[in-house]
């Protein structure tokens, strides 16, 4: 897979300094052409471990410095570069000494040097060591800075920020006005604007701790838990469907139970460690008496990913990704095909995790996550379910019996087919299909293996057949006659006589005669014989390999499953995982290819994900959950605290929230990040307490007015001298439109809705991986194909058209215009309109503008004005 860093697209500045290749030379890309050569051929002797001739080629600095004999690379001059000359030398001086480079490889090195030996500064040839990567070091609680006299601080957070601001000589924005702050807090905590009444109440609250009261009120409503559940759904790539899975039903019938679980978890401010543990191993926690059955839906975190046309390795990869990148900010899945090129994650580590998920499967019957109700309705449901299940079981049992008896009763036919398969390699069937009434292919395979076993080859009966089927068709009769006279195998006399009597000329005739004798003798006692193969040896597809019977099976199965999903009185279930009964260690797949199994993968949680632990029971999910939620784990809490910060400030302290590895950005305030991580754990893993702290800090409360000099010195506001205006994401925009138009249906939880115009909060929309409504993607709703660290923000006219022309927007505009009262009383109406939509009264000029507009417009004027407000930047940006 293409994992090279992006070197040539950094921008125009880079192009200006690029030494263009001479005529006839291909431009050489260090990453693509040179680095792999160094890694493969040079670093063993000239790298971090050994430095023969004091030369290291693992970083730009070392390489350009050279070794004992001075510089080895002279950019632009290959002929003056010892490195290049050594490649060309005769046997004695030649490098590498054992396996010389190919002509093409040498030419690449030459061209690379002559093109200026471009080697991007930050690129180190070998992966970082765990000890080098800041994010893998256990956070220690840093001392809290003393602060700066000139900057008032409300929380230790402010001292960390003030220190840097002061050091860089930046000015600070003032604290924003209360109206702005309340609106901002409302969006951060609930994803909705405050109602005008709430706004006024807050502004009139003269209590000294009015702000704390306001925050508590925002926390208390369900809106907060819904908003933060949705944030978490970005991480957990939530969708209500599986993606493309051929003819199967792609719906997750109870995906919403996971969403409900999230909402409840945020409402209860569930301890974050427990919140994570449940999502990885609720089943194991329940089993070991450490977790409630109500937590089972939490496993949707793992189970509700895409199903990639049912390719199990892709499913496992996705689960590794959601845990490692989603929770830990590590791009572990890079190591599926090769060791991670930048971070200390090896393939061995990847396949240790792979085996954890390979040993975790969906139970055939999804579990209930609470006691079923004792009602007549449920009892009726259960009875019907049993009836349907019995039909299915019966069908399978009968089909199996039929296969076995066919192989006895139509033995001759089976023997002929078996002969044609003899010696042929097993076929890699992508679709194992037969016609009805053909011998069952899986049963035939068992026959073949059995016939070819040493015991049967020397068996008086089957050994004879094994020889007969090996006879060539030419002169069959004669050769058979000779064989029958042969006394090597003591075949029963009547069998031999029976075949002789039939005078078979072909194998088919011989098979008939042979079968005629043998069929009667097939013992039901012989456990290992193919005609007694137990039902459990077959998968469904193997038992029903032809389309018509497969269809009958699917039909009955569907009747069971469908009833379980939506039969009258059916209780909801959890999309859970369970451990396989007999977990097996996995293997490393060379180049990521399951057909090329390599060495066994260790049964451990690998240290490279932050902390190690041996796997002692089951799949290892429980150990995984315990390891990453350990208080000393360097990543889980840092990544979460960073996300919370990002939600409050628009950017995280680490601006690559899904990549804390060496290719991600380092934190802008590393000590602050660690301080927050530490205090988060000390505060009892409470997200709500963390939010309370951040939202009560002076830094968070700063205005969006950019102080003088800040844009020049810190254009991206990394030092947080001010807050930045932020655009609402699609959910917040749509929910706000519903709220201000008075249409928002406040009901909480329950199944998803497929109606884009339904007046419920947007997180309840049905998300189909295969068919995400275009408008959602156009508003940068994240693709649920994989965990999403951060929303994109694009601006397109398609978004504007939705606001201008879609009936949803119209209904909202009508609602808003109506809520503002009688538009004939233009002043009052305008006042109400602004207070509802923008949580502030209009300015004089704005009142005049609106009044003028209403005068010019006909009866549709008020709705159009309301729509303009909904479409305005002020509605969609939060200061």
């Amino acid at each position, binding site marked *: 897979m293409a994992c090279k860093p992006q070197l040539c697209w950094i921008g125009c500045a880079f192009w200006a300094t690029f030494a263009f290749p001479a005529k006839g030379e291909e431009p050489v890309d260090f990453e693509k052409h040179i680095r792999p050569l160094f890694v493969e051929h040079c670093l063993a002797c000239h790298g971090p471990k050994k430095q023969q001739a004091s030369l290291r080629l693992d970083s730009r600095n070392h390489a350009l410095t050279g070794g004992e004999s001075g510089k080895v690379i002279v950019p632009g001059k290959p002929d003056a570069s010892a490195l290049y000359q050594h490649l060309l030398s005769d046997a004695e001086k030649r490098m590498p000494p054992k396996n010389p480079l190919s002509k093409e490889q040498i030419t690449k090195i030459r061209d690379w040097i002559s093109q200026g030996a471009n080697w991007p500064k930050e690129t180190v040839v070998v992966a970082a060591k765990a000890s080098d990567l800041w994010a893998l070091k256990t956070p220690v609680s840093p001392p809290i800075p003393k602060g700066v006299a000139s900057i008032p601080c409300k929380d230790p957070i402010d001292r960390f920020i003030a220190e840097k601001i002061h050091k860089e000589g930046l000015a600070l924005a003032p604290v924003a006005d209360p109206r702005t702050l309340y609106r901002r807090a409302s969006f951060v905590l609930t994803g909705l604007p405050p109602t005008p009444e709430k706004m006024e109440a807050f502004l009139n609250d003269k209590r000294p701790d009015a702000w704390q009261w306001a925050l508590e009120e925002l926390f208390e409503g369900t809106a907060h838990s819904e908003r933060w559940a949705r944030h978490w759904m970005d991480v957990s790539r939530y969708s209500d469907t599986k993606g493309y899975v051929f003819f199967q039903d792609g719906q997750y019938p109870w995906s919403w139970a996971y969403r409900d679980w999230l909402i409840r978890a945020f409402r209860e401010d569930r301890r974050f460690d427990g919140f994570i543990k449940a999502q990885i191993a609720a089943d194991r926690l329940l089993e070991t008496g450490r977790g409630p059955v109500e937590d089972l839906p939490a496993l949707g975190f793992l189970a509700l990913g895409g199903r990639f046309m049912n390719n199990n390795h892709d499913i496992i990869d996705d689960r590794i990704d959601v845990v490692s990148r989603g929770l830990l900010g590590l791009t572990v899945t890079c190591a599926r095909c090769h060791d991670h090129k930048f971070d200390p994650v090896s393939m061995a580590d990847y396949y240790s995790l792979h085996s954890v998920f390979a040993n975790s499967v969906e139970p055939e019957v999804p579990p209930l996550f609470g006691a079923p109700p004792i009602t007549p309705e449920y009892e009726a449901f259960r009875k019907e379910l049993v009836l349907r299940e019995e039909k299915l079981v019966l069908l399978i049992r009968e089909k199996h019996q039929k296969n076995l008896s066919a192989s006895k009763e139509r033995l001759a036919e089976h023997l002929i087919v078996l002969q044609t398969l003899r010696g042929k390699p097993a076929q890699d069937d992508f679709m194992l299909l037969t016609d009805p009434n053909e011998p069952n292919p899986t049963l035939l395979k068992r026959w073949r293996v059995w016939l070819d076993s040493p015991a049967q080859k020397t068996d008086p009966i089957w050994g004879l057949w094994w020889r007969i089927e090996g006879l060539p068709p030419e002169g069959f009769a004669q050769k058979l006659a000779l064989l029958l006279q042969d006394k090597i195998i003591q075949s029963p006399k009547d069998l031999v006589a029976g075949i002789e009597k039939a005078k078979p000329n072909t194998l088919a005739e011989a098979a008939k005669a042979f079968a005629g004798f043998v069929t009667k003798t097939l013992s039901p006692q012989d456990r290992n014989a193919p005609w007694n193969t137990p039902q459990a040896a077959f998968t469904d597809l193997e038992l029903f390999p032809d389309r018509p019977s497969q269809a009958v099976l699917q039909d009955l199965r569907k009747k069971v499953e469908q009833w379980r999903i939506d039969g009258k009185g059916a209780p909801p279930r959890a999309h859970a995982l369970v451990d396989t009964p007999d977990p097996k260690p996995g293997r490393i797949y060379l180049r990521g290819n399951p057909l090329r199994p390599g060495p066994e993968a260790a049964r451990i949680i690998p240290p490279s994900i932050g902390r190690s632990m041996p796997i002692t029971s089951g799949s290892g999910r429980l150990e995984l959950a315990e390891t990453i939620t350990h208080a000393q784990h360097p990543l889980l809490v840092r990544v979460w605290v960073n996300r919370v910060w990002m939600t409050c400030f628009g950017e995280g302290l680490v601006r690559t929230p899904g990549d804390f590895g060496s290719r991600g950005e380092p934190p802008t305030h590393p000590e602050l990040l660690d301080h927050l991580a530490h205090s988060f754990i000390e505060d009892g893993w409470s997200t709500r307490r963390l939010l309370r702290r951040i939202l009560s800090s002076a830094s968070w409360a700063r205005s969006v007015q950019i102080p003088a000099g800040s844009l020049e010195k810190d254009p991206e506001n990394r030092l947080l001298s001010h807050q*930045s205006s932020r655009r609402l994401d699609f959910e917040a925009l749509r929910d706000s439109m519903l709220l201000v138009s008075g249409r928002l249906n406040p009901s909480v939880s329950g199944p998803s809705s497929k109606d884009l115009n339904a007046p419920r909060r947007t997180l309840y929309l049905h998300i189909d991986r295969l068919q995400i409504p275009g408008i959602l993607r156009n508003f940068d709703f994240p693709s649920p194909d994989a965990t999403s660290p951060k929303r994109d923000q694009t601006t397109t006219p398609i978004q504007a058209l939705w606001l201008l022309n879609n009936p949803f927007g119209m209904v909202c505009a009508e609602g808003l215009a109506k809520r503002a009262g009688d538009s004939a009383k233009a002043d009052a109406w305008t006042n109400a309109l602004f207070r509802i939509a923008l949580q502030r009264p209009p300015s004089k000029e704005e009142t005049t503008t609106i009044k003028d507009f209403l005068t010019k417009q006909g009866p549709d004027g008020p709705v159009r004005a309301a729509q303009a407000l909904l479409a305005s930047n002020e509605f969609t940006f939060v200061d």
Partner: protein
Amino acid sequence: MKQKGSILELVNRRGFLGALPYGLGATAMALTNPATAGDLTPHPSRFPGKAKRVVHLFMNGGPSQVDTFDPKPLLDKYHGKPVPEASLRTERKTAGVMRSPFKFQKYGQSGLEVSELFHLTATRHADRLCVVRSMFAEVPNHEPSLMLMNTGDGRLPRPSLGSWLLYGLGTEGENLPAFVVLCPGGLPIVGVQNWRSAFLPGAFQGVHLDTSQTDPTKLLENLKHQKWNSNDRREQMNLLAKLNLEHLAKHPGKDAAHAAMEARMESFELAYRMQAEALGALDLSDEPKILKDRYGDTIHGRQLMLTRRLLERGVRMVQVWSGGGQPWDNHDGLDGQHRSLSRSWDQPICAFLDDLLQRGMLEDTLVLWGGEFGRTPVAELPGLSGRDHNHYGFSVWMAGGGVRGGTTYGATDDFGFQAVEKPVSVHDLHATMLHLLGFDHEKLTFRYAGRDFRLTDVHGEVVRGLLA
């Protein structure tokens, strides 16, 4: 960015902001994308591309190569008999060789051999077609093969070719989505995954128009208000602009948020104009009758006429599908079905190429014709009247946009079963297409989840033999 005074000035700066994917707000996009930090502006290509836009005529279901562009006389000789060497494994049960029911002949100065199914196109354009006869895919199933052809990966969610083009090239026009998918009567297999943007921003995904609709207002969502006409709205747009300008004045600092606010203001002006202009683009009624006759008043005729109009307005990629489901998947009754399908395509394609040529657009428009795979030279059981899926070898052709016309490239075996001479993978095809558009396929990368992804993953080589 300079200070502006009026909405007009703001709007006039459009050309200055030229970006993605609606010629819009690169600043807004670039500064707020987490993964790329400023990397969503169009990428300087490594070299000038011959092609500026792509049309993909997608014969979904898998047209038969031996009945269209890859003549195999031996099929006649072996009709009904098994392939002499061991037959390749097919997805379903197949029997002996099936001869092509269609006549082949040589066309043009190049003597390109094409079957009667594409007689008109070959008669006029044989010397412009570059037929790749040695394509191969990975498996004989529609789903992975469609995804491979469209996104370069058979299983995993990856951005489609069109999304990559927008990422790389940006757009020329402003009033239309830059990647448009025309598919009449429902969706093909795997649906919108065929044109998704996956981890690229949502704005890069293809916009699907159901071309069985003839009413232009029904083609694209939200283009028209239920009851208000555009004149009704001018005042409203002015009100909006006024409110926004006042809001912007309260945010004078030129940071990313300021740029995003400006971009959003601009997007409303664009949207306002798009209502009329996009409707104009989708409305074929002003096309001269003589041209309509040439294209033919059929779904595909209208699709291709619409395609040309979209291209003229700066759309980067138009993917034109045969239809919902998998029309070319003729497991039986191939004779009649291939005949009627090609009849529905031949005249429109011929007229379309003519039209592009006349307007001087063919030279910088890359046209690709083909399916997700081909079909077996052997007949499928039990009907013996059709062909099974064949990923071992199949044909596609390209025209315009810097390809070498009047040529065939590579070859299948004597029966047209498997690509044996100079085989071309789908990744190679993608690499070549990107090359024609001015991109090194190894350099057009996007950082996501710690990796630099590209359309061709770790594969693909530019097939020089296809270049003019």
